[in-house]
């Protein structure tokens, strides 16, 4: 029984079958990559997982509870965090404030009227936030405005914002899209480091084979909205069906 169980999920946009009978199980504490060519339904699947889309049929269970029909914030409160393709951070706020906000969300839930409290007096939040910044090597940048960070640091910050909530499942949406090779490698290292330090399940939606084979323990190949094959990276590499689906697109 995986931490995330997707069963018979279908999603249709007009005449287009975006997801057709998707069955997928992600085991706890693994790094599971979902790959596939453009239009394979990766983004649609991700949008279902984060609560942005509701499938036409099927079930998605996270830790024994259905996530379907829940708002994105409810799904996050269940323990699923999401990293975006381009880092989504609070650009106008300082690095430290960026990290404090998820701390408040974790501690206080989806809404709490602490209008007369003082951010300055929240010592436990400060400690948690400092610890995670230390963890991703950004403590000395805590007073910088987030928009002035380098792209790599923005990625780090976003990771810190997700990790500070101690999610049980981290969803990564093409975390290296549009990056230069050096940045890609840095991101891979960062993710490896994160995984080594804690128990966390990661689901990576990815296009770049290099990233996938560096990180993933299990790989699901999606084609035309349906899982084609699921296996370990070694077995996937030589799989004829995968080569066929990618039609030379992959640099395997």
């Amino acid at each position: 029984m995986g931490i995330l169980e997707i069963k018979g999920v279908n999603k249709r946009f007009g005449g287009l079958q975006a997801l057709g009978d998707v069955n997928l199980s992600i085991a706890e504490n693994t790094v599971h990559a979902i790959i596939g060519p453009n239009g394979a339904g990766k983004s649609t699947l991700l949008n279902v997982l984060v609560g942005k889309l509701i499938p036409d049929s099927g079930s998605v269970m996270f830790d024994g509870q259905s996530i379907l029909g829940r708002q994105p914030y409810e799904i996050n409160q269940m323990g699923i965090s999401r990293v975006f393709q381009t880092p989504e951070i609070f650009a106008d706020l300082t690095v430290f404030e960026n990290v404090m906000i998820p701390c408040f969300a974790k501690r206080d839930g989806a809404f709490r009227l602490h209008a007369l409290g003082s951010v300055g007096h929240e010592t436990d939040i400060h400690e948690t936030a400092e610890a995670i910044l230390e963890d991703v090597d950004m403590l000395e940048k805590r007073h910088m405005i987030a928009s002035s960070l380098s792209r790599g640091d923005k990625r780090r910050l976003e990771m810190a914002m997700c990790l500070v909530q101690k999610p049980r499942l981290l969803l990564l949406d093409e975390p290296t899209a549009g990056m230069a090779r050096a940045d890609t490698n840095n991101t891979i290292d960062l993710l490896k480091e994160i995984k080594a330090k804690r128990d966390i399940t990661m689901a990576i939606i990815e296009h770049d084979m290099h990233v996938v084979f560096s990180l993933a323990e299990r790989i699901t190949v999606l084609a035309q909205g349906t899982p084609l094959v699921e296996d370990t990276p070694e077995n996937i590499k030589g799989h004829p069906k995968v080569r066929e689906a990618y039609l030379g697109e992959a640099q395997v």
Partner: protein
Amino acid sequence: MFGMNRKDTILFVVVCVMVLLAPIFLNPFPTESAFSQFNAGYPALMQRFVIFGILVIGFNILFGLTGYLSFGHAAFLGVGSFAAVWMFKLLSYNIVPAIVLSVVVSGLFAVVIGYVSLRRSGIYFSILTLAFAQMMYSIAYSDLVGKILGFPITNGETGLQVYNDDPQFLLGNGPTTPHLFGWEMNGSVTWDIGGWSFVFHNGYYLAGLFMILSFYIAIRIFRSPFGLILRSIKSNQQRLNYMGVSTRPYMLTAFVISGMYAGLAGGLLASMDPLTGAERMFWTASGEIVIMSILGGVGTLIGPILGAGVIKYMENIISTINDTVVHGWFGFMPDGLEDFVVAIVHPFIGKGWHLTLGLVFMAVVIFLPGGLVELGQRIGAKFSRKKTTDVASSTKTPAE
């Protein structure tokens, strides 16, 4: 002090002192001098400073922190005024029930309007609030509710005021002007020193006290976790949603708080002068609130108060300057040049005040999005030898 950090405490104390001593330092010119027309220390104007100050402090909690631009905020001001006048009509001229009801009623309106409007964001939110405000204005102006009920509620074009045959159940032998347990709002003490004449007005001090209280609450909200979440809504609402925060209740709370501030301002306006009309809710009034906030520096603590003060001062002063006055100023010039200068100045003064306002507002939006506060910071950065990093870090915190 009072749960504020040092910087905020200093700012708070400065504002308190300014409010308390305004009748003195806003009257720098002797009564008989040619410059006395620039004095702002008379009660009617000072009341407007602090009451509109309350209004924009509240508006700033919504627009400044969350970035949601309400274009119909004057509706709450109007609702507050109507509620207060009704209390005068039904009970007595004691302002306590009037102000309590104006805050409560505007809060209720804000719950309903906010609940509906906040289902959309961005420009849709602005237009929804505008639509609601215009609707309420039309209802008040044609007294739709009153015509259905059979007796005047807003009294249409005439406006609502207190008549002798109103019930006023609790009036008894009490004062016949607004008062706080007998302390009449229009009472004042005049203090003549040399050529100066300083008026200490009860109504002003009451409104001023409310503004100080409002300002204090605003500081606390700005520095609270709640305030931090509101600022992050402005910065990246999507991120917040995927971070486990349900933004709508936060937004609604901010909306209702700012609506209640506006209701308080409306109640105080009615307490200073117990009559009101639908025009207080017209969308130009809402536009004025926006202009005040932007001019002063939206998102900063002190900016909107400065903006309200500057606009109300300019409105009073510039609109009373006429060509004769300008001729007086430039009398030292040769005649031709004098006429030329007066002709240039003419469109911007007197009745042309709104033109000046519009131009100044545009200039601020284009060149100085941070308003007067940003201007102050830029000037400060030029004159002091502070490192630029200090300036950068002080612009980011909504302080000053």
